[in-house]
Structure formats: C-alpha cells, structure tokens
C-alpha cells in the first residue's frame, strides 16, 4: 500500500467525470471502451485525460474487445478500466469470467439504465444488480461497489482499483444514469491510499503464476514480457497455468478463486449505518435510491418510531455479517428499497430467521422520494 499525495481541491463535476478522474487518481493508465448512454462521458473524459498522464485510450470495435483488451493491459502491468451500461455489460459477460479465471485486476464501471434490452437509455435504474453478480457462467465470486453520491463516484472508483489490485479480480462499480449525469462538488483529498498488486515472491525459474503462498490466497502477479515466463488460460489450470482437466483441478482452482473473495468479506464489505443500536425497523438501500432515506429516518424518529438506516456501499460479496448483526441488535424488520423488481431483497431474505423482511421494490427510473418512502414506512410500523 502506498500513499499518494495530491493537491487538495474542490471541483464541481458530474458523476461520470468524477469516476473517470478517480480512475486517473488511482493510477489507471489504460482505458478501452465502446460508448453507450448513459456512460459515454467516462470514455470521452478518459480520451482527453489519459494522454496527459502518458496513458492509453482506445475506442474499441465493441464491448467484447474492450473488456478483453483491459485484461491484456492488466497483464502488461497497467491499471485498466472500461465503462459501459447494461446492454454493453451483457456483451462483456463472458469475459468477466475470463478476468476471474486469469485473476486479472481491472475495473468495470456500469452506469445502469432502464432495461431489459434497449430499455430506457437516458434514464436510471438499479435493475442490473444481478447482472453485475451473475453475468458470467461458472462458479465465481465478484466484487461490486455501489456509489451513492458524486463524491463516492470518485472515492469508490479509487477503491475499486485498490480492491482489484489487492485480490486480483475484476471489480465492478455499479452506478446509474442519474448519478452518472448529475453534478455535485467533489473534494479531492491530498492523501489517498493506493494499492499495487502483489509481485512474484520467487525468482523467475521458480515462478508458478497461480501459486498462492499467503493466507489471502492471492498469487503474486508477473508482468508479461519480463524475465518471468508463464502461460495463462481460461481453461481450468494448475498452479503453473497449464490446462488440467481433472475433477480435482476444478475443485482446487474454483475453491481458491471463490475463497479468496469470501474470506476477505470483512475487508471488502462497506456500508453506512445510522441508529442501528436501538432500531426496531431498518431501512436498507443503496446507490442513488438511498438518498431519500436519511430524511425519512429522521422524520420517523421525530415521531417516536425507532427506525434505522443501512446504506450498502458494496453489494457483492453480500455482507452476511452485517445482516447477522442487525438481527443480534434486535431489529424486528428490514425494509429493502431498490429501483428494481427485488434483487438485493432476496439476499436479505436469507436472514428471515433473524427478522422479517419487506420491500419497496419498484422497477422505476426515478429514485424514491422521501415522501413516498415515508408513506410506505408508515404502513409497516
């Protein structure tokens, strides 16, 4: 981990630009993408900004090429990013699994719009929450962060790079059409922690690209074209990277790929909470849709209702420990608010032995207003 020094400043900018600037701050030197509403401004900004820091911007022929070339750049030692929206993310789906298999750090930003299919390109939604988790085939874990403010578009993009470097996995920043386009002030801090990937821990002649020596199960990563020669593949492979088609090889590899993320949940999971200590009802929300909730909680508490708030800043891996804690602290009900037909609510429902679960889950394009949430809440208390 290194601390990088930046000039402190306040800038007024949009979510998409803040995300792109966050990437530059994190040390991103490669962007490959294909424009799609409402994410195009990220690519546009990177096309101007990357050459200024000696980085590379390529507008690719499509999203399939965008994502795979990011993994290539990653193996060449660069921090790489691509940005898209639902339909483009669908095209990247197969290769997200490749990124997991190759253990290639990269950041994928998805600015969620209305779907399915072409849907509502210029509007927002949270309907791709499952897509971020389950896009690719195969058994895998992934990290997904959910910013809620323009400031977090900046902060969590930096965090996405840090997590992807640390755990050698593609990390997804799941934002939406409103947050991407809206303007707010962003404070650029002077001290920012940046994480660089683990280097090979042995000399070239002893190097095996998927041999993990540490408890975190993350192997050291060699850069292609250096003295370290190695082979990587999307096929199931052994620690040397060679394809191996035995049942044992599948078990060993998939268990490690999943376990390195599962066991890091305490370090990955991130949320904001309020009034949980005495809350009887907890409202759980994330992303742009969480922004109506704080006012509702305060309003309800003024009326004497013991209402608490949880805002998830990371969606996947799902924070099971947080749910258990909510149960232990005595809440009797969790109300999940999301701009889709019910996705995160199904994760919360796994904890129905601890509390009741209800939801305000509507596949709409506008975040729930405080008045709307309050009215729904009053039917639950």
């Amino acid at each position, binding site marked *: 981990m290194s601390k990088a020094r930046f000039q402190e400043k*306040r800038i*007024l900018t949009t979510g998409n630009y803040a995300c792109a600037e966050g990437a530059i701050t994190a040390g991103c030197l490669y962007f490959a993408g294909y424009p799609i*509403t*409402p994410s195009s401004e990220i690519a546009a900004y990177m096309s101007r900004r990357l050459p200024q820091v000696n980085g590379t911007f390529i507008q690719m022929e499509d999203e399939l090429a965008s994502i795979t070339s990011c993994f290539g750049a990653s193996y060449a030692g660069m921090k790489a990013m691509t940005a898209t929206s639902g339909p483009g993310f669908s095209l990247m789906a197969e290769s997200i699994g490749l990124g997991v298999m190759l253990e290639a750090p990269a950041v994928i930003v998805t600015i969620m719009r209305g779907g399915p299919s072409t849907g509502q*390109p*210029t509007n927002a939604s949270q309907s791709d929450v499952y897509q971020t988790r389950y896009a690719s085939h195969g058994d895998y874990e992934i990290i997904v962060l959910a910013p809620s*403010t323009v400031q977090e578009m900046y902060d969590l993009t930096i965090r996405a790079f840090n997590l992807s470097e640390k755990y050698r996995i593609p990390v997804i920043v799941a934002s939406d*059409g*409103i947050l991407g*386009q*809206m*303007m*707010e*002030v962003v404070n650029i801090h002077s001290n920012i922690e940046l994480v660089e990937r683990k280097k090979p821990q042995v000399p070239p002649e002893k190097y095996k690209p998927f041999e993990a020596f540490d408890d975190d199960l993350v192997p050291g990563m060699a850069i292609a074209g250096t003295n370290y020669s190695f082979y990587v593949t999307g096929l199931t492979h052994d620690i040397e990277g060679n394809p191996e088609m035995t049942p044992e090889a599948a078990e060993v590899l998939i268990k490690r790929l999943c376990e390195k993320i599962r066991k890091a949940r305490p370090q990955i999971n991130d949320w904001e909470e309020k009034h949980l200590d005495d809350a009887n009802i907890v409202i759980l929300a994330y992303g*742009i849709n969480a*922004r*109506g*909730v*704080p*006012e509702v909680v305060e309003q309800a508490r003024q009326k004497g209702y013991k209402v608490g708030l949880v805002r998830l800043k990371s969606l996947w891996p799902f924070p099971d420990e947080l749910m258990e804690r909510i149960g232990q602290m005595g809440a009797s009900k969790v109300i999940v608010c999301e701009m889709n037909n019910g996705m995160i609510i199904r994760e919360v429902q796994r904890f129905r032995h601890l509390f009741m679960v209800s939801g305000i889950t509507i596949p709409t394009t*506008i*975040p729930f*207003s*405080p*008045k709307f949430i309050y009215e729904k809440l009053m039917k639950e208390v």
Partner: protein
Amino acid sequence: MTRYEVRISGFGGQGVITLSKMIITASSLYENLAATQTEAYSASARGGRCWAEVVVDLDKEIKIINYPKALKPYDFLIILSEESANLIKPEDIKKDENTGYLIWDPSTIKKFRAVRRIEKALSIPVQILAVENFGNIVFGNSILFGAFTILSGFISEESAIETIKNFVPSSTLDKNLEAFELGKKEAQEFLKQLKEGKD
C-alpha cells in the same frame, strides 16, 4: 427544511442547462452551499422539451443534499416554453414569504394559464430583450441569472459575477455583465412592486 428547490424548463438550446450549471456553480463553489444539479439528457436537450433542476441547501452546516431531485412545491421556477408552461399548476410553487418565485418569458409563451394564480410571477421577455439590447439570444441566460440572483437572495453579487466569468467567453464578458444588470433591475423593480402591492 432549508432545501431550496429550483426547476427550469423550456426547450433545448435556450440555455436551460447552462443556467442550471451557473446556479449550482455560484451556490456550491462560491457560496459553499451543498447543492445538486440534474438535467434532461440526450435528444430532449437538443431541441426537444428540456429541463434542469438544482437543489441548494441554504444551511451552511449541511454538507450534502440527500434527495438529489427537486421536489414540489418548488421555491423557484423558470419557464421558457409554452409546452412547459402548460404543465405548471399553481400548487407546484411555494406560497411562503421570500420564496415561490416564477420567471417566465412572454416572448416564447403566448398563453400561460396558471400564471394568474401565481402571486410572485415575473414575466421578462428574455429573448426579445437579449436580441434588442445585445444582438443575440444567448445573452438571455445572463439576464435570467441576474433576476435569479436578486429574487433567490442567496447568491452574492460577487459570486454571481465570478460565475459569469467562468461561463462566458472573455470577449463577451462586458455584454454579459450588462445583461446580468438588466436582469437584476427587472427583478428589483418586481420586488418593489410586490412590496408596494402589500403596503
């Protein structure tokens, strides 16, 4: 509640979005108030029905606007097209003291049914004034910004001028500042009339 809800609507190309950006720049960067701006996207911003919203919190202690979109009833409405005017109801705007202002442009709106039932409605023929005085409709933005600065009352003259400097090419700065003054004057006259009406 110290939220100040602003909505501007008209059609694409009138400067609806630019004006909203001027308002958030002055409020957040120069007045240090928490603010958010959202806008119509894509084709609607290029000739179709266009809107932009700014929410400002007038309490300096507040660091973030929670709900980012402007909520009805609004504190300030700027209506620049007949299509948008048709959607306005008198109850969409606040009736409290020192707030609930509507500015509309009679040079682009022939018929504005709700306007008779809105107490603090100021009509400024923005497009005509801009063309007659400054030779181009783009100066309409600075006229509106001047009127907004006076009526809203939370942007200092200094902040407003710095904002204009940020937004206009330096070769047109003087003309824009004149347009800003013109808008200010319209609003000051209007406030005087409102006060006299009450007395």
